[in-house]
């Protein structure tokens, strides 16, 4: 017994190392399984409000670009409005699908923290469950998609950015309407992403635009980016395409959280498929 005790004392550094290392690895693994349900992340109040403060100083530096992009968005919205006003109602019959009206609501949020040069990137936003944010909502900017809400606390939410190996978004090509899925891929550059699983017979041209399909959490027809390189093949019958993202992830400041009012109904209906099959 004494010898055993001496053995432990002699090699105590090693045993402490094993103990603490195992705790750390357990934290990592548990975290991977439950998708960061743990409270030690940047959606907790202390870290979140620190990042918010930091960001409120940093946002002054980007004021010019933010103003410019807001002005541009204003202009394009105004133009769209003009189209409605100027529309000749006599020779065009307007069909408005009433179920799509008011289907999506947008919650405006500021980016409190953002990263682009990690292997898995996340954002923190300054809106939380108090403002009606729920886990799984989509996040976009005026010119592209950003990611999916991962965790929500009372005042903050964390977002799994598109620049993350776990994010997958359903998209279409503009002219042909073929479906593909948008992933960051094994990429190290935050400006580019890859569209996977486009059928091989489709002819894809460089510069062609890519939009959201409306099948996932985003509204239909949001610009995602433009085709940059077409030569990548993934397998026998599918085609991979590299696109340049329209969202500039390195200077995100204001984003919209997409609230889909019909999401619950859609999911409940689709869940029945699994029951039958």
């Amino acid at each position: 017994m004494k010898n055993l005790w001496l053995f432990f004392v002699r090699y105590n550094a090693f045993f402490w190392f094993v103990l603490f290392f195992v705790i750390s690895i357990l934290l990592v693994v548990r975290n991977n399984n439950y998708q960061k349900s743990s409270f030690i992340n940047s959606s907790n109040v202390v870290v979140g409000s620190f990042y918010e403060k930091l960001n409120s100083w940093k946002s002054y530096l980007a004021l010019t670009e933010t103003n410019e992009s807001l002005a541009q968005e204003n202009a394009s919205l105004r133009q769209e409005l003009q189209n409605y006003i100027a529309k000749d109602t006599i020779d065009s019959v307007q069909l408005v699908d009433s179920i799509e009206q008011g289907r999506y609501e947008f919650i405006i949020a500021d980016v409190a923290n953002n990263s682009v040069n990690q292997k898995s990137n996340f954002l923190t936003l300054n809106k939380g469950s108090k403002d009606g944010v729920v886990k799984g909502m989509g996040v976009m900017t005026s010119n592209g998609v950003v990611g999916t809400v991962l965790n929500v606390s009372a005042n903050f939410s964390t977002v799994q950015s598109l620049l993350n190996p776990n994010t997958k978004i359903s998209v279409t090509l503009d002219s042909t309407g073929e479906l593909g899925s948008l992933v960051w891929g094994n990429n190290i550059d935050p400006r580019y992403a890859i569209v996977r699983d486009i059928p091989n017979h489709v002819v894809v041209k460089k510069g062609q635009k890519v939009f959201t399909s409306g099948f996932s959490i985003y509204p239909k027809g949001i610009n995602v980016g433009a085709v940059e390189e077409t030569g990548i093949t993934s397998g026998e019958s599918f085609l991979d395409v590299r696109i340049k993202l329209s969202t500039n992830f390195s200077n995100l400041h204001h984003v919209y959280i997409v609230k889909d009012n019909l999401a619950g109904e859609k999911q409940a209906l689709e869940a029945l498929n699994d029951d039958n099959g």
Partner: protein
Amino acid sequence: MTTMGRILIYNGIRFVVLILLQVVLFKNIGYYNLTSSFPYILFIFLLPIGISNFLLFLIAFLTGLTVDAFYDSIGVHAAACVALAWFRIFFKRITLEIEVRESFDTPTWDEMGFKWFSSYIFFGCLIHHFVLFMVEAFSFKNFHYTLLSTLLSSIFTFLIILLISLLFYKRKSRLISK
């Protein structure tokens, strides 16, 4: 002020300043995600030489967890810092005399000399970054990429730590001869 109090206060200040620098400044500096630097580990390097093993592991673990909270990567930095603490104990055992090992001095550049200090920091960075990137990747896929990332980031961190140490360098009596 007692020596113990001074050590506590110095280490406390070092902790706050280095963590702040890490999450505000160094988190945003890097070459895509191939190279990044983590000079906050200087805090663990500079803990008193004679600190007890348990306390060293506990402080390293908590430091790692603090950084994890800012990086949204709970456990990854904690694991790396614990590995670094183990390296520290090992390195101390093979390079220092018994009486130096027991002392409560801070192992800085001016106390220990450049040769000892630089090898201490460099190998420590290698161990820390290797464990960090391995746990982060959590597989042997792209192993060469992990290794390259480890090596480049270690050099980056090593240089930044030397720069920080140079700022506080003052020549005086040595604990060990060169």
